[in-house]
């Protein structure tokens, strides 16, 4: 197992190097002088020159990348053009909010998605199954930012008017209390919930057809125990993988959800920074989310190998 984990981490090094190179290189795609892009359009010529010297922008590309990588490893992501604060600090303040939203969304998606999948599989080809799968398909097809907007309409406009209230049931924007968390969590979870429901259904159907389930039924094990103790336990292995992979996808989706609900996380920081052409922050946030995405994927692989020992030997 240790060897597998080690191999998996070694495998990630070239991928992370490649991804960081792409982020580093992206500043060259911006039309004009990269030094001005990094220092900001309103920067003084002295500051632009200082940035050029610091980042080695007059050196060959591999050396520039080496300097960049060294700075990243020390946690030095440059300075925000907009706020003048270190990018690392800007991200550090906001990251917990994004992680909080992502974590709750994942939990919510699993809590609803897996039972729907189980229900669908145990009642395969009935109207309950059809309804659940239509629900899942809608969840996959719905743009999460639109769902967010619709939740705002419902909780801040429709529901209060039905109840004869003058104020929103839930706060439409901001963060701080659990009420603030409800709408962004649902919006971000919708896609993931639908995928988990579909995955659980497929996995459960496969398991429920297997011989040991037939044996369990034949020897008179109660149906509930057949489904949950014998069925779901074994069906969970691929589902756990999907849940893990969803965490990374949700980190990306947080960019949209945070924009809809003015949630003060790093997704919103990224979108705001684009408006201000704050490239050091754009590069920093993209890199942090990507590194998180890659690490989570490795953890999922390791967890999968732990749950299913056959994986380690392939």
């Amino acid at each position, binding site marked *: 197992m240790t060897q597998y984990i080690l191999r998996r981490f070694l495998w990630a090094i*070239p*991928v*992370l190097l*490649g*991804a960081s190179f*792409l*982020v580093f290189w*992206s*500043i060259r*795609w*911006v*039309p004009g002088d990269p030094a001005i892009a990094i220092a900001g359009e309103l920067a003084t010529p002295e500051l632009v020159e200082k940035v050029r010297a610091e980042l080695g922008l007059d050196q060959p590309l591999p050396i520039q990348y080496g300097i960049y990588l060294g700075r990243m490893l020390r946690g030095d992501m440059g300075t925000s053009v907009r706020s003048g604060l270190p990018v690392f600090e800007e991200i550090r303040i906001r990251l917990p909010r994004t992680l909080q939203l992502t974590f709750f969304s994942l939990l919510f998606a699993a809590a609803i998605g897996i039972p729907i999948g189980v229900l669908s599989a145990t009642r395969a080809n009935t109207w309950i199954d059809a309804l659940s799968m239509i629900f899942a*398909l*809608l969840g*996959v*097809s*719905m*743009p999460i*930012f*639109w*769902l967010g*907007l*619709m939740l*705002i*309409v419902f909780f*801040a*406009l429709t529901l209060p008017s039905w109840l004869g209230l003058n104020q929103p049931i839930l706060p439409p924007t901001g963060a701080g209390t659990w009420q603030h968390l409800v709408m962004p969590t649902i919006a971000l979870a919708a896609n993931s919930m639908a995928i988990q429901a579909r995955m659980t259904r*497929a996995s459960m*159907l496969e398991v429920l057809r297997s011989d040991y389930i037939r044996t369990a039924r034949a020897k008179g094990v109660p149906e509930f125990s057949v489904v949950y103790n014998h069925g779901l336990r074994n069906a969970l292995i691929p589902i756990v993988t999907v849940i893990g992979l969803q965490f*990374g*996808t949700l*980190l*990306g*989706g947080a*960019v*949209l959800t945070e*924009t*809809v609900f003015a949630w003060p996380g790093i997704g919103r920081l*990224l*979108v705001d920074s*684009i*408006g201000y052409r704050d*490239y050091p922050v*754009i590069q920093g946030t*993209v890199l942090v*989310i*990507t590194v998180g*995405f*890659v690490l989570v994927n490795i953890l999922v692989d390791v967890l999968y190998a732990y749950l299913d020992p056959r994986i380690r030997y392939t």
Partner: protein
Amino acid sequence: MTASSGSIVTRQGGDVALRAPRSNLSMTLRRLARSPGAILGATLVAMFILIGIFAPVLAPYDFEAADFVKVRQPPSAEHWLGTDELGRDLLSRLLYGARLSLVVGLISVGIGVLIGAPLGLISGYAGGRVDQVIMRLMDILLAFPSILLAILMVAAFGPSLTNAMIAIGVVSIPVYARLMRGSTLSIKEELYIEASRSVGTPSHHILTRHVLPNTIAPIVVQSTLQIAVAIQASAALGFLGLGAPPDVPEWGNMLQKGRTYILSAPHIVVFPGLAIMLVVLGFNLMGDGLRDALDPRMAR
């Protein structure tokens, strides 16, 4: 193989050696017609394409004509879906938006297929170091959550509909490369390829005449599903202000503009989102249906 022998194969659950040839269009269509989901999907997609093509004929008003006396009006007999923040007819803008989404979907998927598929084909057929290099490059692109890579590209190149299309297309390259590589690897081992190689057929001939035609089915299925992804991604970029210029009636753009008035005129955000959802649903249903119809072993 005749159509009748194909149907026997289907009833038996499908065997690799006996499977009906993929060119058997009538069999595929017959299987598609038996799936209610696929029919619904195809209907939605057909409507979307027709609306995209005939938008100028169908639109009741000029989509750019502002009427400041009638701003943010709810749906009425005069304006079926109401008017937007500048008094423009929402239905007309939605219809023109379908045309934009259709173009974005087709072009970005085209970029993904035209670059990704040949890369996968070469990677799978050549193997060795070429395969290693191409696939590691694809791994790097896959290391990013896809929306994030698109955002990074559009942020650097500058927001525009063209850049959004390119970004969405580039993000889908590894999807096609991996798919094509997988198909090529399995087809490469088939006896007829071995036979062709042993009589001295040049590689490019084997690739274009034998391997490529046999990998079309999974590419078609993936592209159908990918158009849905592209339309959603383009709307997302538009919503973040990274797509088309503000006045263009792109659906994501319309949602971004309407967001400001969400509590006073919610209809401005309801309809564009509904349109995105229906079109994406259509392509998803059709993609699922096509996959099952082209490969009966996949059907549950």
